[in-house]
């Protein structure tokens, strides 16, 4: 937009509100807020064109702390409200802040349909594997057997794998980052912002009150490099403190291998985020469920050439208007058979 270039560039401060932040001290949400506020000014989009929409839960308070247009809606419905908004105004930059309960439990239906339609929304899934705002019940991503307030003897629910779910419904952009990996998180947000269709970003987030250290094995300084593999397009999957471990594809199975002894980088799986087969990203999404495997972070899939839902809808309207001419209300009211009653 021409006006934007005349104004001084936006800064992180421009995206901060005067509202007192009401997350618990030490909550992972602060880090995510900070990363988003850092990335938004870089995007070259006028501030008034940003809209942040959320559902219900701790993470869904996000819009109140972003100095953009914001809509804190009802539990689970943010994707549906954002879809209506985006269809009506495809020019706006719409981000959805949601949690594992909001997005995958009560709002599961809207989530999958938003992703299959490929609505141009950026979704930040704050996954802390617990219900925080209602004070500590298990969530659809809680590990089986977990003891919580509502499951004193352990959950009997098999959890969702959010990325596998998104890939399963043909989401065009699926990524994962971690609240405390600020640089990686910002890079991932930039990638999501650049994606045209639905961008689904799972952010592993710590709830230090009700589920502290849920992601500790990934975030502890010493353990991090052994338990995380960072996906980069066109690069082999390597991890380990000394970058001496890799992931190899043998048949339909992934395998962790030690580099050396005849095994070189050339033997490793090279990441292809545009891989046309859903099975590829699906395999990555399930990797950490196998013993000895690291958790992948980064962009699992980025399919760029799928049309956005709101563009298809509005293109169809334009096509019909070109074919039939713009609607004439007088003609519409007189359509079909009519008859005259004379005085």
């Amino acid at each position, binding site marked *: 937009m021409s006006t934007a270039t005349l104004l001084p560039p936006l800064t992180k401060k421009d995206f901060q509100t005067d509202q007192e932040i009401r997350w618990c001290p030490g909550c992972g949400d602060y880090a995510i807020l900070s990363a988003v506020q850092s990335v938004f000014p870089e995007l070259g989009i006028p501030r008034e064109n940003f809209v942040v929409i959320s559902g219900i839960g701790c993470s869904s308070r996000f*819009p109140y702390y972003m100095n953009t247009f914001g809509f804190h809606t*009802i539990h689970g419905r943010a994707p549906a*409200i954002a879809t209506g908004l985006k269809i*009506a105004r495809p020019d706006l930059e719409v981000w959805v802040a949601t949690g594992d309960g909001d997005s995958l439990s009560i709002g599961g239906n809207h989530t999958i349909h938003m992703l299959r339609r490929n609505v141009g929304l950026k979704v930040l899934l704050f996954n802390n594997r617990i219900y925080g705002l209602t004070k500590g019940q298990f969530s659809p991503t809680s590990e089986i057997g977990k003891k919580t307030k509502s499951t004193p003897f352990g959950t009997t629910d098999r959890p969702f794998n959010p990325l596998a779910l998104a890939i399963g419904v043909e989401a065009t952009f699926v990524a994962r980052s971690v609240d405390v990996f600020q640089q990686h998180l910002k890079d991932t947000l930039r990638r999501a912002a650049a994606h045209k269709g639905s961008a689904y970003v799972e952010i592993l987030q710590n709830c230090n009150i009700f589920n502290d250290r849920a992601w500790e094995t990934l975030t502890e300084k010493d353990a991090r490099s052994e338990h995380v593999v960072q996906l980069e397009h066109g690069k082999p999957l390597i991890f380990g403190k000394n970058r001496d471990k890799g992931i190899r594809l043998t048949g339909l199975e992934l395998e962790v291998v030690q580099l050396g002894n005849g095994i070189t980088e050339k033997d490793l799986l090279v990441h292809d985020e545009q891989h046309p087969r859903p099975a590829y990203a699906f395999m990555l999404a399930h990797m950490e469920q196998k013993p000895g495997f690291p958790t992948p972070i980064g962009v699992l899939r980025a399919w760029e050439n799928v049309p956005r839902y709101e563009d298809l809808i509005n293109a169809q309207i334009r096509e019909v208007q070109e074919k039939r001419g713009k609607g004439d209300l007088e003609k519409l009211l007189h359509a079909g058979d009519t008859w005259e009653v004379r005085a």
Partner: protein
Amino acid sequence: MSTTLTQPRQRKREVIEKAVIRFCGDSGDGMQITGSQFTNTVALYGNDLATFPDYPAEIRAPAGTLPGVSGFQVHFSSSDVYTPGDSVDALIAMNPAALKMNLTELKPNGILIVNLDDFGETDLRKAQMTSNPLEDHSLDGYRLFPVELTKLTRAALKELGLDNKTVDRCKNFFALGMCYWLYNRSLDTTLRWIEDKFKTKPALVAANRTAMQAGYSYCEATEAFQISYEIPPAKLAPGLYRNISGNSALAMGFVAASQKAGIPLFLGSYPITPASDILHELSSYKNFGVITFQAEDEIAAVTSAIGAAYAGALGITTTSGPGMSLKTEALGLAVAVELPLVVCDIQRGGPSTGLPTKTEQADLLQALFGRNSEAPIPVLAPSSPGDCFWIALEASRIAIKYMVPVIILSDGYLANGAEPWKIPSVADLPEVPVHFETNPVDFQPYRRNPKTLARPWAIPGTPGLEHRIGGIEKQDVTGNVNYEPLNHERMVRLRAEKVAAIVQEVPDVVPAGDPSGDLLIVAWGSTHGPITGALKAQREKGRRIGHVHLRHLNPLPKNLGEVLGRYDRILVPEMNMGQLVMLLRAKFLVDAHGYNKIQGKPFKQSEIERKIEEILSADGRI
């Protein structure tokens, strides 16, 4: 184009004022099309009319069985028509099941045309009949015309070389042709429709045309009917007319509102009977910039419309009872964030799935009060199919002017029923002014217009107006999250006062009939027709009665309490257990009495008349 079938006839032609005709048959027999065609023909001729399509929820119940019977009733007249008719002058029954389900509606000595070819033993068994009514004298009280509809249609179409299945599907048009002869109507309107409908299938044009013409010629040639009837055009107000159903009128009303407002129309909807036709119709109006979003569920339907309204579109959603229940929480959000939204509830029988294709008025209290906490919503109800157009405009105008969700309560009877509608000129339609806030100086998202108490419509993309809204209680003026006790009470009262202020849009009621007297009938929605008919008939008998029909159910008209006080008795007929009557008693402390019918069918005029007489005679007034 004209047909060659209208040569003068020698047989008797009687001029009568009105007739009620009902086509009934199997769901697959095309009764809805047959009835619609007859309706269009009499409408174009200039009769006043009302229709009652009555069809099962099952798409195709087993052929020939009682649950599969579908019917279409048309009342047409040279004088004013208020209802589809209490009883039927001519019944066309395509099979024994249709006969069994509909015979009670036929007047003594009424015309009864049946398809003789479908009265075999199997057909009778499917209709659970133990003896053949065509032979057991049970139909002696009617003018029975058993016609070999199937055989005659096959004979007429044998030159066309079509398969029997296709040929047999034309027998409804043979019957239609007979009815056109019986009521002296030209075949032209239906011929035009056939040519348009099957323009890519010339064989079907020929088949349906031939079948209809054969039916007409059959009456002409066989002298089965010794008499035919003539019903002159009605004296409607001068103007240009078309036929319209309630759902179609709602769809056009919303397009008109969007055009008048100069903002796009966004419909979020999930298919549900009997509301789906609004979605179908609006989805064909893309050249008006109409956006239709068939959502994944009822909740996404309403919330996407809220999202579109937030973006500055005219957001609407259409549904029926079960969907209305699912939308409840979202309506509370619309109340809290004060965005314009129109919700159409096309009521049907309930609870739960209930009677999907049958009519009822039992969602009134749900519309008024069916949300958690204090969440007032204006409620409007159209009184006829044509009125649905005006209600759509009115609801949209109020929603935008007051920044509030509005509920329209239509019902299955209005949705599918049709009537002649005087086409308005676009220049005469009310304006729907829209103001988007653009001034960032001292902008506050919840600063209210002093007259309407509406907050500004500040849409995303407007520089300097960045702000946050949500379902959490907001501070007055700033809209910031706020949990203070006194602020909450203030906001609850403000939201209620805003809805109450809409009374300035509501015209005072002027009772039809006597302005004061022995009895006042108060009603709403689709009961308008039978009550109007009953009022006229009873006043002709000298009764002192009035009728108030409420289009605005929240807020109620200012002078309603005063009007109620002018009559000795108040009667409230409703197709529910007594919802408006409860409201009137609570609000005005009047001794109003309900008259309730919950059968999935509209009131008959005679039922209302009987009730009026019962009340007046108990009082010793007659």
